[in-house]
């Protein structure tokens, strides 16, 4: 049973003014880097290509809006964890009356992330490996990627995983910014992209769905609580919890707005190289071959390295959330990455994903589906998180009278409602 921390009873929300210094916050951004590396996957590249190819920097504002929503979701997950000491599935299972159904929904999506999403990321990773090592066979590359991920999970050392994910985040940002430097970035266009404008091609709905689907990955949101839990230093007293939240919020900032940073580089490249010709790149390979003529022959390995880091980190992160959620769903308690059932779930799911990858499905379909699934998932996750944000059960950490928190709650409800209706409605034959 989830218990609300008694230490917050009777204390006005957000009245303590406890926090940590900026320097202390940026010293430890491990959980944020973990989540950011999971958030940024091959779907970001496909989505950026579609939105950027159609409208240059025109959709950059949508990245800011969806990443603000993602930050808020990570914040609510942190607050729930601080108050109850529990993570993902518990947030759904403890909703009155429909908790069992929401938990089943999360259980299904946990398995989807462990298999379907990881399939997509393995596939993109394998293509990226063949971009860096042209003579390597695709199937061999996919096998190496899958075995590498399974080996890292089998070791079961969270500190190692944390370092690997941070390193890959640096590689992602470095690689895409290198491509952006090479092609040049039009800062004036970027600034104009911050202001919403009509898409002349009329593709707003589809592009916004795709951007929301990649930037507010419901699984990565839930992953945040597990990464905080893995660290195991949740304070028991209210002041300590308030300080911990400021640390968690800084990490959430990196976790969510890391995608904005990467989108700046990606859209910058597209805006310079691709958008003027009306070409819509859909796959990482499209990007590589479009950038190469302008950026030079080194572009393919450099860009492929970024795609590899993005895909590999997402294969690890999304597969892990799949295993965390599946274990918590069936065991009624969260587990850590050194738990044997966690390892078995990840590895068996990854083996199934690896088999699907061997079929050599066109990665674009996998990425389209991944974005669609993420958006569908967020339709439910966002609404449940909004419920908890306003719930008095969060005690001191409830929204209370904080206007910014309520504004973000409303934004989350609007975005989750929109993408949820759009995507879930599609399964029932509704067209928009």
């Amino acid at each position, binding site marked *: 049973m989830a218990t609300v921390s008694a230490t917050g009873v009777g204390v006005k929300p957000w009245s303590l003014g406890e926090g940590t210094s900026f320097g202390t916050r940026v010293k430890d951004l491990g959980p944020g880097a973990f989540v950011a590396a999971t958030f940024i996957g091959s779907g970001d590249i496909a989505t950026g290509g579609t939105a950027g190819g159609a409208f240059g920097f025109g959709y950059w504002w949508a990245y800011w809006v969806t990443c603000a929503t993602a930050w808020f979701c990570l914040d609510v997950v942190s607050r729930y964890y601080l108050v109850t000491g529990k993570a993902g599935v518990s947030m759904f299972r403890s909703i009155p009356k429909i908790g069992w159904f929401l938990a089943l929904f999360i259980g299904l999506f946990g398995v989807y992330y462990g298999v379907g999403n990881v399939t997509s990321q393995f596939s993109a990773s394998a293509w990226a490996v063949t971009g860096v090592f*042209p003579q390597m066979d695709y199937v061999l590359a996919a096998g190496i990627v899958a075995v590498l991920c399974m080996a890292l999970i089998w070791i079961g050392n969270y500190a190692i995983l944390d370092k690997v994910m941070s390193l890959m985040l640096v590689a992602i940002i470095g690689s895409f910014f290198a491509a952006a430097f090479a092609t040049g970035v039009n800062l004036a266009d970027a600034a104009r992209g911050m202001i919403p404008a009509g898409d002349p091609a009329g593709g707003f709905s589809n592009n916004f769905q795709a951007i929301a689907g990649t930037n507010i990955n419901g699984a990565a949101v839930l992953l945040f609580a597990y990464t905080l839990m893995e660290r195991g230093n949740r304070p028991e007293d209210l002041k300590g919890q308030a300080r911990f939240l400021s640390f968690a919020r800084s990490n959430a900032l990196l976790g969510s707005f890391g995608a904005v940073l990467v989108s700046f580089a990606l859209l910058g490249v597209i805006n310079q190289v691709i958008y003027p010709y009306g*070409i819509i790149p859909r796959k990482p390979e499209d990007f590589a071959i479009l950038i190469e003529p302008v950026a030079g022959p080194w572009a393919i390995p450099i860009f492929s390295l970024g795609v590899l880091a993005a895909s590999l980190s997402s294969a690890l992160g999304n597969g892990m959330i799949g295993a965390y959620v599946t274990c918590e769903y069936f065991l009624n308690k969260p587990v850590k990455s050194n738990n044997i059932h966690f390892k078995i779930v990840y590895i068996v799911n990854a083996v199934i994903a690896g088999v699907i990858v061997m079929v050599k*499905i066109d990665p674009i379909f996998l990425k389209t589906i991944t974005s669609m699934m993420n958006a569908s998932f967020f339709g439910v996750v966002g609404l449940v998180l909004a419920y908890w944000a306003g719930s008095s059960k969060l005690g001191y950490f409830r929204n209370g009278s904080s206007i910014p928190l309520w504004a973000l709650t409303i934004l989350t409800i609007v975005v989750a409602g929109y993408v949820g209706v759009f995507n879930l409605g599609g399964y029932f034959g509704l067209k928009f």
Partner: protein
Amino acid sequence: MSRGRLLAVLIALVLSLAVVPTAFASGTDVKVGDVEATVYAPSVVWQATNSHVVVKLVNRGSKPATVEGLFKFPEGKDNQFTYGTKSPNTAPKDGDTKTLKDLKPGESKYIAFTYITPKGNAQLGMYTANLTLKVDGASQTIPWTFDIRTGAVFIAQTDSIVYMIYAVSAAMLVFWFAYFKLFVNKKFNILAGEEA
């Protein structure tokens, strides 16, 4: 990371954007009559993956010019490719022509041959296509040599993949239900909620 170091990294990022924006830019430059042309084309193309040839044209002369671009697929191998996005997208044996009229002095414009796509079963290896640019009486042919590599093999419809992924996920959920219920947590109840 200390505040000073973080600030230094941020400043370096901003400066990099401003100082080295086009340091690696490249392309094949030719001059045809009074028109300078830069041809951008990839050196690696994957099976079933689109590629594009983009030509930037600048008129350095004193009077308007008409530029005609003829793109020809590798000789005798046009059947290895599709071209364009409209059906039928058979690659034309005689190539495709794009004409840019009235390119004013000092003006810069582009022509592009887009969606040049090796078929899924295209033979791997090196190919050479040709682009010929004509300006008034002058003419230049620029070879485009590229390497076709293995690409996606199974190109299915989105719906079929969605259903396959759903089916596999549902099957795995049943598998994990059996695993946990039989061997790990026999008390698991699918209908049980949790009190907050």
